[in-house]
C-alpha cells in the first residue's frame, strides 16, 4: 500500500500491462522521450524502449488508424490523444471505424485497443482544451467508455480496458492528475461496467464521474451536516458498459436521483441515465430527477468564470437541498 498520484497511477497502469503482455504497445505525441505533456508517461520509454513506446507526428488520424490496424491484426495498442478535445480531429476512427469493425465484418475482426486521453476542465486552457467529452463517446455503439476518479481506479480500470477485446476510450481527468490516493501493491485489475457506491445513504442518490466525484462527496458531507440529507454517492466509473443494476438499486432505496455532470447540459451522460430511471424506476421515484451540469456553453478561459461554470460542492448542495426540501 502506498500513496500514489493519479498521474503516477497512469504510469503504473501502463507499465503493469506492458510488462505483462509484449503485444501491448503505446504511441502518441510527445509520449516517449518527453514523457508526455502531463508527465503521465514518464519512464515508459526508458523501460520499454523505442519499439514499444513511440513518438508520433501531429497526426491523430494516423495515430488512431495505426492503433486500429495493429489491433485488428494482433497487437493490443494504447494510443494517447493528448487532449480529449482532439477527438474531433480523428472522430472518424472513434465513431465510424473502430466501434463498427466487429459488427460490419460479422465478427471476423475485432479491435482490442485503448485510447487514453486528458479530459475535462479546471486548468484554464479555454474552450478548445478543456472539454468533457465523455458524452461524445458514450453515444457511439461498439465503444466502451471509462472515466476513473481515483488512482486505484486508474490502474484497475486501465488494466481491464487493455485486456478487453473491444475499443475502449479511457478518460483521464486533467484536473485530477495531481490528486493522490492509497493504492495497494501488486497487480490491480478491476472490472469494466461496475459503478461504486462511495458513500451509502438513504435519502437520495447522487451519480458522479471523474472530477465530479470528489465534489459530490464533499457535497454529500455538507448535505448531511447542514441539511440533514443523507445522500448516497455513486461513482459511475464506466459509462459503457453501464452498471444500471447498481444505479437502479440505489434509486429503489432512496427514491430520488441527482446527477453531477461536467459535460455541458444537452445530452450529457446523465440524460441517458435519467431516461433509464424515468422508465424503469418510475414508480420508485419520490420526486423529480435533477441533473446538475455545466451550462450548455463553451468553456471560458478565465479562472473565475471557469469555476462558475463547473458544478462544485456549493452548487450541488444548494440545488439538492432546495429540491429535496421544496
Amino acid at each position, binding site marked *: 500500500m502506498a500513496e500514489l498520484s493519479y498521474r503516477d497511477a497512469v504510469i503504473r497502469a501502463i507499465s503493469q500491462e506492458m510488462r505483462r503482455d509484449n503485444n501491448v*504497445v503505446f504511441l502518441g505525441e510527445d509520449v516517449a522521450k518527453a514523457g508526455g505533456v502531463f508527465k503521465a508517461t514518464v519512464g515508459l520509454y526508458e523501460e520499454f524502449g523505442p*519499439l*514499444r513506446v*513511440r513518438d*508520433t*507526428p501531429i*497526426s*491523430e*488520424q*494516423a495515430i*488512431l*488508424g*495505426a*492503433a*486500429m*490496424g*495493429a*489491433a*485488428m*491484426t*494482433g*497487437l493490443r*495498442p494504447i494510443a494517447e490523444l493528448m487532449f480529449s478535445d482532439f477527438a474531433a480531429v480523428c472522430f*472518424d*476512427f472513434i465513431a*465510424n*471505424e473502430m466501434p463498427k*469493425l*466487429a*459488427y*460490419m*465484418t*460479422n*465478427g*471476423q*475482426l*475485432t*479491435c*482490442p485497443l485503448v485510447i487514453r486521453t486528458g479530459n475535462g476542465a479546471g486548468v484554464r486552457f479555454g474552450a478548445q482544451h478543456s472539454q468533457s467529452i465523455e458524452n461524445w463517446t458514450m453515444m457511439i*455503439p*461498439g465503444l466502451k467508455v471509462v472515466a476513473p476518479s481515483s488512482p486505484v481506479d486508474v490502474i484497475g480500470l486501465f488494466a481491464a480496458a487493455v485486456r*478487453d*477485446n*473491444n475499443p475502449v476510450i479511457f478518460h483521464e481527468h486533467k484536473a485530477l492528475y495531481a490528486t493522490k490516493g492509497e493504492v495497494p501493491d501488486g497487480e490491480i485489475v478491476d472490472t469494466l*461496467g461496475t459503478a461504486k457506491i462511495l458513500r451509502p445513504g438513504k435519502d437520495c442518490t447522487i451519480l458522479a464521474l471523474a472530477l465530479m466525484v470528489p465534489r459530490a462527496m464533499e457535497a454529500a458531507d455538507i448535505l448531511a451536516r447542514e441539511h440533514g440529507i443523507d445522500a448516497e454517492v455513486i461513482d459511475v466509473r464506466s459509462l*459503457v*458498459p*453501464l*452498471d*444500471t*443494476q447498481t444505479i437502479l438499486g440505489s434509486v429503489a432505496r432512496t427514491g430520488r436521483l441527482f446527477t453531477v455532470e461536467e459535460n455541458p447540459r444537452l445530452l450529457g451522460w446523465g440524460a441517458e441515465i435519467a431516461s433509464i430511471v424515468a422508465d424503469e424506476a418510475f414508480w420508485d421515484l419520490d420526486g423529480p430527477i435533477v441533473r446538475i451540469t455545466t451550462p450548455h456553453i463553451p468553456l471560458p478561459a478565465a479562472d473565475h468564470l471557469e469555476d462558475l461554470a463547473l458544478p462544485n460542492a456549493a452548487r450541488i448542495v444548494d440545488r439538492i437541498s432546495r429540491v429535496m426540501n421544496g
Partner: protein
Amino acid sequence: MASLQSKENDDIGHETRRELYRLQIEIRDAEKRAYDLFLQNLIKGTSHLSLGQEAVAAGFGVAMKTGDKTFCTYRGHAHTLARGAPVEGVLGELMLRDNGLMRGKGGSMHLTSAEHGVMGSYAIIGAHLCIACGSAWRAQYLGEKDVTVCFFGDGTTNIGAFHEALNFAAIWKLPVVFVCENNLYMEYTPIGDVTAVQHPAADRAAAYGLPRILIDGNDADAVFRTAREAIAKARDGGGPSLVECLTYRHSGHSRADPGKYRPPGELERWLERDPIKIYRQRLQEFGFTQEQIDAVDAESKRKVEEATTACKAAPQAPPELLTADVYADGGWAWRN
C-alpha cells in the same frame, strides 16, 4: 511506364500469366453479373464496380503472398476476389444474403474475408490508409514478414487522412504499399478539377520522401512487375511505396450511374485499352492457344453462374444477427 520484356527473357512466366488472366476475367465476369443483379433489383443498397480496372486488382493479387493483407474501399469487389475470396461469398454479400462474406451485415461497401487476408473494405474516404499503417506496424513490430497493400482512388488523395498515413508510413518505414487507382474521377467530378497536380498520387510522392511511381494500370504485366518490386521492398524492410495506376472505370461510379459527366469519346478510347483485351493479346503473344484462353473463360463463367444460382437460393440471415457481434464477445449488451 514499365515496358514489356522480351519473350525470350520472360520474367513473369506462363503460370503467372495464366493466373493474371484468370483473375481479371473472374473479376470481370463477377462484376458484370453484379451489374445485372443490380438491374434485376436483386442487389439492394449500392454497388461500386471495377469494370475496366481489373488489371490493378489482378496484378497486385498475384504478386501478394498468403498472409499479406489487403485493405480496400467500397470499390473493393475486385480486390477481395483477387485474394481468393469465393465469388459466392462476394455476390451473396452484395445481395445481402446469409451466404455473403458477412452474412449481409456489412454489405457491398464493407467486403471482408480475414481468412484470405482481406482486412476490410472501408467506405469513408481515407481512413483505411491510416489503418493499413497499423497492420504494417504490427508486422514490423512482431517481425512477421507479411506486407500490407492498401488500394484507393484518385479522389482520396485530397483528404487529410491520405497525407497523415503517407507521412506516418514513411517515417516508420512501414511494410505497406499504397496503390492509387487513378480512374480520372471522384464520383462525378473530374479529378483534374479538384486537384492541384496532374497526377494526384505520383506528383505527391516526393512530399513523403518517396520515389515517383506512375504506371499503366490497364496492363496487368506492368502492374504485376511494379507490385512485385514494391512488395519485395516492403518485405525486405525498405519501407513503403506509393504507386499510381492509370486506369478507367467502364461503368458509372455506383449503382446504375450512366456516367453522363464524361466527355463524348472518352469511354470509347479507354475501351480500346480494355485490360482484358490487352491481356488476351498478351497471352497470344506469349504462346497461349485460343483453347487455353477459352478454358479459363469457361471456368470463370461456370464459377459465376454457380455462385449466382447459390446466391439466388440463399436465405437472408436470421433476425438474431441484428444484435450479434456489436462487441467482441459476440453480443451487444451495453448494460447489466
